[in-house]
C-alpha cells in the first residue's frame, strides 16, 4: 500500500492545481471546468457515460486480442525465416508511421460501421511493440541452452516451446505494457470516425453541445480504463512468471 501513496499524491496535487487555476484563472468555468464540476457532471450523466464506455471496452479487448494473435504469428514467422524478416520488417516499421487520425475515417469507409474498423485500428496501433518484444526475447535465448537442447535431440518446435517462448516472456510483457496504453486511444479514434457509440462518440457529442465538463469526464474514464488495463498486464505478468521478479530482486 505504501507503493500506492506517491502516485496518488502526485495525481491529487495535479487535480488541486487544476482546481485552483480553473477557479482563479483567466478562463471561465464554461471553458475550463474545475475538477469538481467535471466530477459532478460525470456523475449526473453516469448512465449515458457507462453505456458509452461498454462499446469502447469491447473494442479494446477484441482489438487487443486480435493484435496479440497477429503479433504472435508474425513473430514466429519472422523468427523462423530470415528472408521473411528482411522482407516484412520494413513494412511493419512503415505501418507505424501511418497517421491514424487520417486512417480512421478511411477504415470506416472500407470496412463499414461495425466493430471491424475498431479492431483493425487497435491492432495496427498496438501489435508492433509486442512483435518487437517477442523477437528480442527469442533472440535473448541462452546460446548454451540452445546447444544443449539440440544435443538432447530437440527439433524446432521443442526448442521454441521449452526455451525461446519462455525466454521471450520478460520482453514480451514490456512490449505489452507499452502497447496496452495505446489501445484505448486507438478505439477512440475509430469511434470518432464512426457514429456507432462508444466514448469517442460521447466525447464528440459533448464537445458539439459545448460541454467541456462532460468531455473531460469521458477523458477521465479513458484514463481509468488504461490504468486498469496496465495493472492487469502487470498482474498477468506476475502470475505467468512469478520467478522473474524474485530473480531480478536477487540480482540487484
Amino acid at each position, binding site marked *: 500500500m505504501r507503493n500506492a501513496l506517491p502516485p496518488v499524491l502526485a495525481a491529487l496535487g495535479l487535480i488541486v492545481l487544476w482546481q485552483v487555476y480553473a477557479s482563479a484563472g483567466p478562463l471561465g468555468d464554461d471553458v475550463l471546468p474545475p475538477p469538481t464540476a467535471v466530477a459532478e457532471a460525470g456523475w449526473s450523466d453516469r448512465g449515458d457515460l457507462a453505456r458509452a464506455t461498454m462499446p469502447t471496452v469491447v473494442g479494446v479487448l477484441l482489438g487487443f486480442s486480435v493484435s496479440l494473435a497477429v503479433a504472435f504469428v508474425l513473430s514466429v514467422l519472422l523468427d523462423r525465416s530470415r528472408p521473411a524478416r528482411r522482407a516484412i520488417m520494413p513494412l511493419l516499421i512503415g505501418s507505424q508511421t501511418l497517421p491514424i487520425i487520417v486512417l480512421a475515417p478511411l477504415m470506416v469507409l472500407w470496412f463499414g460501421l461495425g466493430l471491424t474498423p475498431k479492431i483493425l485500428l487497435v491492432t495496427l496501433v498496438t501489435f508492433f511493440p509486442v512483435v518487437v518484444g517477442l523477437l528480442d526475447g527469442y533472440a535473448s535465448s*541462452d546460446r*548454451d*541452452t540452445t*546447444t*544443449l*537442447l*539440440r*544435443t*538432447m*535431440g*530437440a527439433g524446432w518446435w*521443442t526448442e521454441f516451446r*521449452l*526455451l525461446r517462448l*519462455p525466454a521471450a*516472456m520478460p520482453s514480451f510483457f514490456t512490449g505489452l505494457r507499452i502497447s496496452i496504453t495505446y489501445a484505448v486511444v486507438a478505439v477512440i479514434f475509430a469511434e470518432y470516425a464512426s457514429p456507432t457509440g462508444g466514448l469517442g462518440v460521447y466525447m464528440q457529442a459533448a464537445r458539439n453541445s459545448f460541454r467541456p465538463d462532460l468531455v473531460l469526464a469521458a477523458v477521465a474514464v479513458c484514463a481509468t480504463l488504461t490504468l486498469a488495463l496496465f495493472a492487469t498486464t502487470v498482474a498477468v505478468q506476475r502470475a505467468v*512468471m512469478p*520467478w*522473474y521478479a*524474485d*530473480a531480478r530482486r*536477487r*540480482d540487484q
Partner: protein
Amino acid sequence: MSPPRIEVTDLRKTFASASGPVEVLGGVSLHVDRGEFVSIVGPSGSGKSTLFGLLTGLLEPTGGRILLDGRSPDRSNRGLAWMPQADALLPWRTVERNVALGLEVQGVSPARARARARDLLPTFGLDGFARTHPHELSGGMRQRAAFARTVAQGRDVLLLDEPFGALDALTRTDLQLWLAGLWQAERWTVLLISHDIREAVLLSDRVYVLGPRPATVQAVIDVDLPRPRSLDDVLSAGGVDLERQILSALAGQATSAAEGRDGGGAAPFGKHDGGIVVRPGLAGGGVQDPPQ
C-alpha cells in the same frame, strides 16, 4: 572385446572465416572405453569445444572419422549427454523440471519426467530442493543440478565441458572430490574437457593433451593412481609426477608456439603456457617438484 564407446580417428575441422579458412582440429585421434573416465586438456582455443560439437553431431567434420560403439553415428540421438560450462539451467523451471528437461525432449510426459528427476536428486545432494528455482541455489548446487540433468538423460556417455570452470576454487575442489566419489559408484563413461590439470589427474583414467591450433594430440598420459582416489593420491609423488608430465607436454607446445624461445627445455611451472591456468594447488601446496 567390445569396441570403444567413442573412437575418434584423425578428426579434422576447418571453419571458414572472413580472413580465410581456420584449421581448428588438425587430426585428432582418441578413444574412450566403456566405464572409462577420459580427460582432454589443452590451451584455450585449441578446439576442445569444437571436438564436442563434432561428437554431438552439431558440427560436421572436415575429415576423419567418429565411431560410437563401433558404428558411424546417426545425425541425431548419439547417446551422448553434454554438460556445458555455464550451467544453462532454465530460470523459469524448478530444479526437478530442469533435471527433467532431457527426458521431456525425448518425449517422456512432463509428470513422469519430473518423477524420475526427483528420484535422482538425493544422489546429487539436491534432496529437498526439487521445487527451488535456480536463482535460489549456490553456484555449486546449480552445477550439481546441471550435472543431474546430464545424467538424467540416460545416455551412454557424459561429455563434460569444463563443468567446474566457472566456480570459485573451494567449491570447485569440493565438487571435484564429490564427482570422483560419485563416479566410483556409478562408473559412467565420461569424456571431460578441463583447464585444470589437477582435476584431470584426480578424475581420469587417461589424459589427452591437445596442442594449439590446429590441434593434435601432443601426449597421452595414463593415470595409474589407485581408485578410489583422494587428494592425497593426487598430491603423492606419482600424482605430482603426472601433473608434471601434463604440464611439460603443454609447456612444450607453448615454447614451440613461441618459435622455440626457451629451447623447449624444462619450462618453469606456472609460466604462461598457452592459456592453461596453473593454479596453486587444491590443498594450498602449489605444484611441487616430485622428490627425486
